[in-house]
Each structure stands twice: as structure tokens, then as C-alpha cells.
């Protein structure tokens, strides 16, 4: 035992000799002595047991009982330490707590002052808190995949919420500059760990969202579950859900999943991956623009081609029509010509045949042949045929045409008419 502890009993040596009057202690003295004994003789230690009656007092201090089958200890966790607890333990949960024994002098009961409280595994309490909040958010639908919003294809302004001096921010800026340097980045630096980190992160999300960005990246590099805890706190979940533009969460490493990740519209494995998801690839965009330019050109020449084709067709139809039209005429003309000459020929042939007939008939009718048979034709001086008695005037001269010449004659007397 340390010398100092011996002092507790040192008073005896200063008592006067003789039958010593018994030393009478006050209750306070006893409790103080026992308290010192407890506090100074027993080292800080880990204790395990089941928790009962966990009670978080208005003051922020937490009181509970730790027990096993046959014994129990009253425990207290003061506000400062209790504030680091991600959540309250469930009744009956097996805990291990680290701290020291003391005596609560006012009651004379001893208690264990807890500085650290863990579930069976070191991360147990964090996991418990995570699952609790997650269940609540699930119930509210905040983690529903149907709620996820699509990221803008080409954001003009990107908000970034992270520690302003972090490697995470440097990674985000490097990726964004490489892929999409035309994007404007608005950074809101925030504390990302320690008590109150959740509220700071939430406030930072609200702040950048209010500045009119197209998308928000919430990021932090890797760390222990405790380091990342701020991103598992309810205010962050609420701020992400309420953010008017999509939120991409890039917290920790690939294996870390935070509440922020679950509520965000997109979970990226790392801060760099978050930036990749947000910043469009400028080279791909350049290729797309080139392709669009070609399509535009093709579409226009398609328009020209369609018109040329229509023009060609129209011309074809026009000329075709004209050709058909003229060829009909030409045919009719040719036909007409052929018909005409045929008709003419026919007529000519018919005429010449008639002519021959007529010639033959005329031959037959020729007066010369009659004259040759001994007839004579009387003609007046003018050569007119004298047909009847009325044509003969007495004393008028006339001639008789006979077969081989003319015979001068004179009407000797009045002609007589035979009835």
C-alpha cells in the first residue's frame, strides 16, 4: 500500500498515551476515506456485464446498472463521456466498460465511473446506433431506392462538403479538373469528426445547397468507424434528404457504409469516385459532340438528297409525260401519214382504174367511130352541134362533119318536123 494511503490511519499515532479514547469518525470522514481507498488502490479496469436500467439524465449524465447472475454494480457515465456514445445500449445488452471505482459519498454507495462503454465488440455500440437510425430512416422511406434522384449529366456548379484541408478535397478537385475543368466548384469546409461533426456537416450541406449548385458531394477520407461517425448522425441524414439537388456521398473507403451513403442519391466508394460520378468526362463529351456534328451534317445532306430525289423524280415524270405525249402525237402523225398516203394511193388507183374505164367508154362513144360507120354530124359555123329541126335556120350555112372531113352546106328550105 502506498504511503499516502497509510496517512488515512496516521491519526492514531498522534493520540495521547493511556487508555486511548476510541477515535470517532464522522460519516463523511468514513466515506471520504473509503472513497480514497477505492479510487487510489484499485487501478482503472474493464468490467463486463449486462446492462440494466440505462438512464440518460437531463444533465447529460448516464446512470445504469451492470450485473451478472449474482451481483450488480451501479455505474455512472458523466456528460463529457456520455456525449461520445453514439446511442444508448439496449436493456440486457452485454457491455464492457472501462473506468474506476469510487464512492458516492452522499449515499455511501460505491459506483463505477465509466469513461468508455463498448458492446461486445469494440464497434458494437456504433453498429447498434447505425442499425437503429437505419431502421428508423428505412421506415420513413428516406433510404428507399425509389427516392434516389438522377445526377445531372452536365452540372455547371458542384458543391463540395468536406474538410477544407483534406486529401479528400484535393482528390475531388484533381479528378474534376482532369475530367470537366469547365465545372465550377463551390467548397464548404466543415469539421468532419468529433462531437458535433454531424451537425456541422448538415449545416454545410444546407449552406452549399442554398448557393444554387446542381449537385452536392459530401466526402471524407477513410478512418475508423468512430472517425466517420459524423456521417452516421441523424442531422446529416436529414440534411441529405432535404437537399434540393442530388447528393453524392463519398465517405471513407469502399468497405465503409455510412448513413450518409444510404440516404444520398448516389453512394460512391471514395471521394475520388464521387467526383468521377459527378464530373462528366470531357473527352467522351468531345467525341459525342463530334458524332453529333456528323449526324447533323448527314441529316442535312439527307434533306438535300431527299429533295434531289424528288426533283429527279419530278423531272422524270415531267419529261416522261412529255415524251409520252409527243410520242402519241408522233405515232398519230406517222399513222396519219401512212393512212393518208394509203388513202391517196387507193384513191389514185381507183381514179386511174376509173380513168381507164372512162377512156374505154369514151373510145366506144367517140363520134369518130360513129362517123366511120357512115353517120355525119351537122355543126353550125361556131362548131355547135345542130341537134334538131329548130337548130336549122333557112338559108343559114352549116357544115357536115363526116369521117374524113367537112362538107359545106346550106339550109335550102324550112325544115319539117317529124312527129
Amino acid at each position: 500500500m502506498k504511503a499516502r494511503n497509510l496517512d488515512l490511519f496516521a491519526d492514531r499515532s498522534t493520540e495521547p498515551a493511556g487508555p486511548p479514547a476510541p477515535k470517532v469518525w464522522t460519516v463523511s470522514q468514513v466515506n471520504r476515506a473509503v472513497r480514497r481507498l477505492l479510487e487510489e488502490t484499485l487501478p482503472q479496469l474493464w468490467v463486463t456485464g449486462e446492462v440494466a436500467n440505462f438512464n440518460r439524465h437531463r444533465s447529460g449524465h448516464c446512470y445504469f446498472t451492470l450485473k451478472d447472475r449474482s451481483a450488480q454494480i451501479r455505474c455512472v457515465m458523466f456528460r463529457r463521456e456520455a456525449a461520445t456514445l453514439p446511442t444508448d445500449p439496449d436493456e440486457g445488452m452485454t457491455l464492457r466498460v472501462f473506468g474506476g471505482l469510487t464512492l458516492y459519498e452522499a449515499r455511501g454507495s460505491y459506483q463505477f465511473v465509466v469513461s468508455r462503454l463498448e458492446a461486445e465488440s469494440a464497434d458494437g455500440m456504433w453498429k447498434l446506433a447505425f442499425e437503429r437510425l437505419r431502421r428508423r430512416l428505412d421506415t420513413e422511406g428516406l433510404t428507399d431506392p425509389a427516392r434516389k434522384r438522377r445526377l445531372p449529366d452536365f452540372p455547371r456548379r458542384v458543391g463540395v462538403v468536406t474538410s477544407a484541408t483534406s486529401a479528400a478535397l484535393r482528390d475531388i478537385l484533381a479528378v474534376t479538373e482532369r475530367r470537366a475543368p469547365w465545372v465550377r466548384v463551390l467548397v464548404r469546409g466543415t469539421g468532419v469528426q468529433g462531437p458535433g461533426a454531424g451537425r456541422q456537416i448538415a449545416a454545410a450541406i444546407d449552406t452549399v445547397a442554398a448557393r444554387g449548385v446542381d449537385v452536392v458531394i459530401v466526402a471524407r477520407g477513410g478512418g475508423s468507424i468512430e472517425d466517420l461517425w459524423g456521417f452516421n448522425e441523424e442531422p446529416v441524414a436529414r440534411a441529405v434528404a432535404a437537399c434540393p439537388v442530388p447528393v453524392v456521398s463519398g465517405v471513407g473507403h469502399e468497405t465503409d457504409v455510412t448513413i450518409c451513403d444510404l440516404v444520398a442519391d448516389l453512394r460512391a466508394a471514395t471521394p475520388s469516385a464521387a467526383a468521377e460520378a459527378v464530373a462528366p468526362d470531357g473527352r467522351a463529351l468531345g467525341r459525342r459532340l463530334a458524332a453529333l456534328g456528323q449526324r447533323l451534317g448527314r441529316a442535312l445532306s439527307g434533306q438535300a438528297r431527299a429533295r434531289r430525289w424528288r426533283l429527279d423524280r419530278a423531272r422524270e415524270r415531267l419529261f416522261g409525260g412529255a415524251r409520252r405525249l409527243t410520242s402519241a402525237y408522233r405515232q398519230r402523225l406517222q399513222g396519219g401519214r401512212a393512212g393518208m398516203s394509203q388513202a391517196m394511193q387507193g384513191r389514185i388507183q381507183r381514179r386511174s382504174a376509173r380513168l381507164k374505164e372512162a377512156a374505154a367508154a369514151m373510145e366506144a362513144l367517140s363520134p369518130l367511130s360513129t362517123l366511120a360507120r357512115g353517120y355525119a354530124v351537122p355543126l353550125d359555123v361556131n362548131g355547135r352541134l345542130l341537134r334538131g329541126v329548130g337548130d336549122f335556120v333557112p338559108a343559114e350555112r352549116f357544115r357536115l362533119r363526116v369521117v374524113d372531113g367537112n362538107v359545106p352546106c346550106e339550109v335550102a328550105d324550112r325544115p319539117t318536123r317529124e312527129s
Partner: protein
Amino acid sequence: MEADAGLDRRLERIEEIVRLLDSDSLGLDEALALFEEGVGHIRRAREVLARTELRVEELIGEEGEEVREFEPAGDGDGDDAEDG
């Protein structure tokens, strides 16, 4: 479309123009005007892509009410370690 229209709106419009030009219900004047518009959008989009320097601003102040050009912290800053 305004001069600073976003890339997404430009791309959408260009695609719309291509679709229109692929249809055969356009007048020639209309087709030419659309083509010119599309080429303009492509040119503007290319101008945007041609930028090389990232512009970063930082919101400072209690409520983030001030904006300043972001100055990256020097390497070896103590906070880097804890932020992994």
C-alpha cells in the same frame, strides 16, 4: 437558347435538331436554319470544353455568406492526417 445554356440543354437541342432533320416534313429554309442552329450549339459546347482551369470557390463565414477563391492548403498540413 441563351448564351450560357447548360451543356445538357445544348446536347438535347442538337439531338432534337438531328431528329427534325431526319424527318421529311421540313421546308428547305427551315432545315437550313435548324442546321445552322445545331452547328452553333456544337461550337459553343466545344468552347466550353476547351476550358482547362478549374474554378474553385470557397464559402466562408459563419453562414457561408462569403465566397472567396479557394486556396488549397499547403502540403503537410496537420489536419490532413486525421482526414485520411
